[in-house]
Structures are given as C-alpha cells and as structure tokens.
C-alpha cells in the first residue's frame, strides 16, 4: 500500500468510525460501533431506523462535522453508514487524524 492510498483509506475509516458513533447515539442503537456494518441498510430491514431517527442522525452528523447537508440530497443519501460518509465528503466535511 502506498502513502496516498493509506492516507485515503485511513481518512475514510475515521469518517466511518465517527458516523457509526453518531448513528448509535442519535438512534440509541444497542450496538457497539464495530457491530454496525458500513453497508448495512439503515431503514426497513437492516438497522430498523425510523423517520425520527433519520432526522436526529442528520442533525447529529451536521453538528459533529460542522457542515450542512443539502435537503435535496438527504432522502437518497441516507441509506447506510457509507452513503452518509459520501454525503459528508460531498459537503466538504473534514475529520482530523
């Protein structure tokens, strides 16, 4: 693994870790962070979030990462931890090492 790839992957992992924790807190999920798979569906089957949880998650990550996620992107983007990370990256969020 070269340094640019290592930097990219470690940055992504930091985002995944922070979003997992924000999700667990916002939706009061009875899981440890590593029990939340990055591609597990948030709604319906999967983690079973409802619309209130969704709103709380958006508020939580916007606060955590100091960004505003465009409302037009929330509905389609709030599918998994990974898609939430994608939303944050697109919104210019950053996370320190």
């Amino acid at each position, binding site marked *: *693994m070269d340094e640019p*790839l290592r930097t*990219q*992957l470690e940055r*992504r*992992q930091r985002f*995944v870790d922070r979003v997992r924790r924000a999700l667990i807190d916002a939706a009061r999920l009875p*899981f*440890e962070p590593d*029990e*939340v*798979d*990055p*591609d*597990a*569906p948030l709604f*319906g*089957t*999967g*983690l079973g979030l409802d619309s209130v949880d969704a709103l709380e998650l958006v508020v939580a990550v916007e606060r955590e990462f100091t960004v505003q996620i465009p409302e037009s992107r929330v*509905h*389609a983007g709030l*599918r*998994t931890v*990974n*898609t939430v*990370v*994608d939303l944050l*990256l697109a919104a210019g969020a950053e996370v320190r090492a």
Partner: protein
Amino acid sequence: MSDPVDLLSLLGEPAESRALAGVPVPWRYGPVDDEVRAVRESAALSVLPHAWRVRVEGPDARDVLDAVVPRELYVREGQSRATLLLNDDATPFADVYVALDERGWLLYGEGASSSRVLELLRARAPAGAEVTLADASTDAVLLALSGPFAWEALTELEGPDVLGMSYLTHYESRGTGAQVFRAGKTGEYGFDLWAPRSSAGELVARMRAACARVGLPLAPVGYGALSVCALENHFFDVFCEGARALTPLELQLQWRVSSRKEGYPGAEAMRARRARGITERVTSLHAGEELSPGDALHFGDERIGSVLSAGFSPCAGKWVALAVVALPYAHSGVDRYEVRTARGARVAVRTHSPPALNNRSLAVRPSEHSYEGRGDVRFAETSRLP
C-alpha cells in the same frame, strides 16, 4: 407431491432454467436486461420453486425455533424478520424470514431445503419439547412480485388494504388462499406470495387480468434478473456470496444475527471470530468491462481480494460486483484497484457505497401515483455510481 415441471412453466416456458439447491428454477424468459428493467420500472412476477417453508407450532414452538435462529425472536403476530441459518462454522447456508401468524411460527427462505431445516430443528429442540414441525412447501409455491408498481398489481387483486401493509408484515388472503408477505430482495416494492399449488395457475391468471385492467405490464422474471437486482441493491444472495466460507461478519450481515445470543448453530464460531477480528470484508465495486466470480482484485501487483459475484446492471450501464477484500483495503470510493480476469484482461474498478441505484420505488407514493400516471412521478437519476 406436485411435479416440479409444472412450477417451472407456471409463468410460461422459461428460455433457460438452472438448478438452485438441486431444484430447477426459471433463470430467464427472455433477455435478462429486459427482465431487470421490468423489476426496476413496472412490475415483475417470479416463481421460486426452490424456496421452502416450514411450520413450527405448539406450546414450545418458540423455544425450538430460538435454539436454531441466530437472532432474538422479538416478533409480533403478523410480523416477520430477516435472518440466516448458520452452519457450525458460522457460514450461512440459508437466507430466511421468521414469521409469526395466528397458528404459530413460520420459517421460509432460500438455500438448503425444508428437510434439512426440519432435521436441524429436531436435532436442536430442547428435550421433551412439545412442538409440531411440518414441511409447508409441498402443497405451496412462492411467487415473488416486485417493482415500483408491484403494489398496484396486488391492490387491484386484493383491495386497497394492501396499501397499508408495512414492510415485513404479512396476512392470509381469503380471496386467493395465499399467505402474503411484504418482503423482497430487489430494493423495489416487493411481495412474497405463498400460494397453494393447486390454485397457483388461477392466481397468476387473475393477477395478469388485474394488471391488464389498470394498464400495468406484469413481466415474468427469472432468477437471473432477481440476482442482478439483489447485487445492485446489496441484498445477500445465498447462492453467490453465500457459497464462500464467510461469516455474517465478513458478509456485512451482522444486523441479521445477535451479538449477544448464545446456543444457536454457529454461535461459538461467531464469538471466536469476533474475538479474533475479521481480516477481510465484502465490498461493492463496479467497472466498465465484464467481471466474473473468482477474478482476482489487485492493488498494483499485490493481490487484495477476489470477486464473489458479478453482473451487468442495465440501469447503471456498468458491471457491478461484490468482492471479498482484505480489510485495510475494504473501503468505498477507491479508484486505484484493478481486477485481473481469468481471460487475462486487467480491468480498472472503483469501489462504491451500495446501492448502485436510486430505486424508483422511493419516489412512488401508492396513495397518489399509478403506473399509467407515472409521468407525474419525479424520479431521481437512476444510477448512483460515479
């Protein structure tokens, strides 16, 4: 027992059939791409002769099921839950729903067979358990209805109450004799109908007539298209990624099993794997060229994984795949990997966050929309892939 050939031709003669768990299943009726589009754009009907269903009834039914299912049985009457059945090494051998109705418990799914599941239930039942175990597949067949307007087909057949069905609920249809589950593995509206075999042909005819009344195309769709749809939407396919020696931890299916429950087949292996930590994880990726199961995934000259399942997504216009990838590399958004195919090609791939599509069902509101009036629906751009 009914002749399996009858089920194979229930929706018309398939152009190709394949064996799943030893049972002939319609793979396609025409081009797979057309069938995938039918699932994604209108309504599609599939017959799944390989699916099985068992009943678990009696005073100790819950305890018997609890000894086998790796998930807590917090299920109310009329509800179902998705889970797995695991081997002792924690690899899944069946993709199942567990449900509770007024008679008792039901387990239905794909992979393995009803006889294997019944044998497991008997073997793991607590001593002296008062329970009746029965194969509920022999006189029934599973029909799967999928698509952004699948609800319209069922509503026309069953009445408007269908519109109020929540996901993972079920009811017994007096009109058709079918047990109807709101469930599916395509990412669109979906309904599983366990219909009596003796009247399945009549049910199909009535559903087709109902769709014709409202101008809704109802396409026969084989397992080939359902498999592509599952891949596009990151639904577990027990016949693809389930065929490898991976546990729910590597498969990203932890939500289907309990991290705290003990005693089910595979529980010890799961605990041991959690304690050790996983070294690889399934990751979604896509490419502009053909990918195949078994193709090697590389970063430079370093092999970092292999393709588990792959298919062409006509809606995304790309090949989508699921690969098992060494954990440090198993992340979305990487465009520096390549697949080295068995035919000697090197194909640039990009990892992505599934699903690969914006499902049209997310934009359809059954209380307002219809297939004929679909021009009024504001669909998002289909592909989510960069």
